[in-house]
């Protein structure tokens, strides 16, 4: 509500260091690993947290990009995610590859994932903890807000992060009975 009074003020969000985000996320994951001890539970939690963030990000994205047309198929989703949404919120570009199951499944490759900068994942966690699952969760949350049900999982490769996305179904608007639009 008060946002209008704040624009043009001294706070420039871009200037806040990306390292702050990276380190904060790192400290958070560390804390969760301490609290839960099971890396798989932590991965699931990260997915849920990403989901919640994603639903809000979808709102923000739509508000700021009025001229992006409605996605009709998976190709377009991949295009918008890799060229607009991810560079916008993560600060780095992503490339689309590995199409399969009749263009319903693809990978987003993030070359220099800011989340994993300054981070070294211990060997005993590598197999069970998906450190960047929060990104996958955010994509799932954002797309679900736009009525695309997808499955997303983040995999840490040697030199990049791969987000595997599979389109499950397009959700139908379920309006309360008796309401017409």
């Amino acid at each position, binding site marked *: 509500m008060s946002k209008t009074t704040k624009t043009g003020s001294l706070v420039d969000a871009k200037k806040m260091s*990306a390292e702050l985000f990276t380190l904060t996320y790192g400290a958070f994951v560390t*804390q969760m690993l301490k609290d839960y001890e099971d890396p798989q539970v932590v991965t699931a939690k990260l997915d849920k947290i990403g989901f919640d963030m994603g639903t809000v990000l979808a709102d923000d994205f739509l508000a700021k990009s009025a001229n992006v047309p409605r996605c009709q198929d998976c190709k377009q989703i991949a295009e918008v995610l890799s060229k607009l949404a991810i560079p916008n919120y993560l600060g780095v570009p992503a490339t689309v590859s590995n199409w399969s199951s009749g263009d319903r499944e693809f990978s987003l490759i993030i070359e220099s994932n800011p989340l994993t900068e300054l981070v070294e994942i211990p060997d005993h966690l590598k197999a069970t903890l998906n450190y960047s699952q929060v990104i996958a969760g955010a994509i799932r949350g954002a797309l679900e807000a736009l009525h695309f049900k997808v499955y997303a999982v983040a995999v840490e490769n040697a030199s990049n992060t791969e987000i595997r996305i599979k389109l499950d179904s397009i959700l139908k608007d379920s309006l309360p009975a008796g309401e017409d639009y």
Partner: protein
Amino acid sequence: MAGIPFDLLHSQIVKYAKEMEEKRAEAKNRWKEIAESIVDSTEIDKYDQLVKQAFMHSNAETQLESMGYRVGFVLAERLSKDAAKFNTELEIVKFICKEFWSNVFGKQVDNLRTNHAGVYVVQDNNFSMLRTFSDSTQFTKDIGIYLAFPSGVIRGALACLNVQAIVTATVESLPVVKYHLQLAKKA
């Protein structure tokens, strides 16, 4: 990256810390019940996990503050590596208020006062980590927990520059935040 995504992450972390506090309180209550009914001491081993949770003495604010401490420590380390040598305590506090503040919170502080006896009052008239709240006095009661993390960041940064301090924050009306830095006397 550091704008909306950070705000969302921060609020998720706060939410998480609150949930964990509730869980610990619950564990404490459950342990109380169990402890009274236990007769054989070997049974205690079964409740290892519960006991651990119940005896963890930290509330949500402490947890957030300690996360902030880690973050602030590392950030200050990275930002200060090219800075000129600090000769006085005041120079360190000035570094925190200028370079560190603008890198981490997006702007410099608006006012810095000191009593020259180890107490500094830092005022930021538009604190970036609270920008998701509307400007008013409406939420000042609930905002405390959102200040735990940034307070930890500042304390961590000071600790990195070899200054031990107690950092507390006060809010009278958003978005103005005042930080009181009470520095420990050098032995």
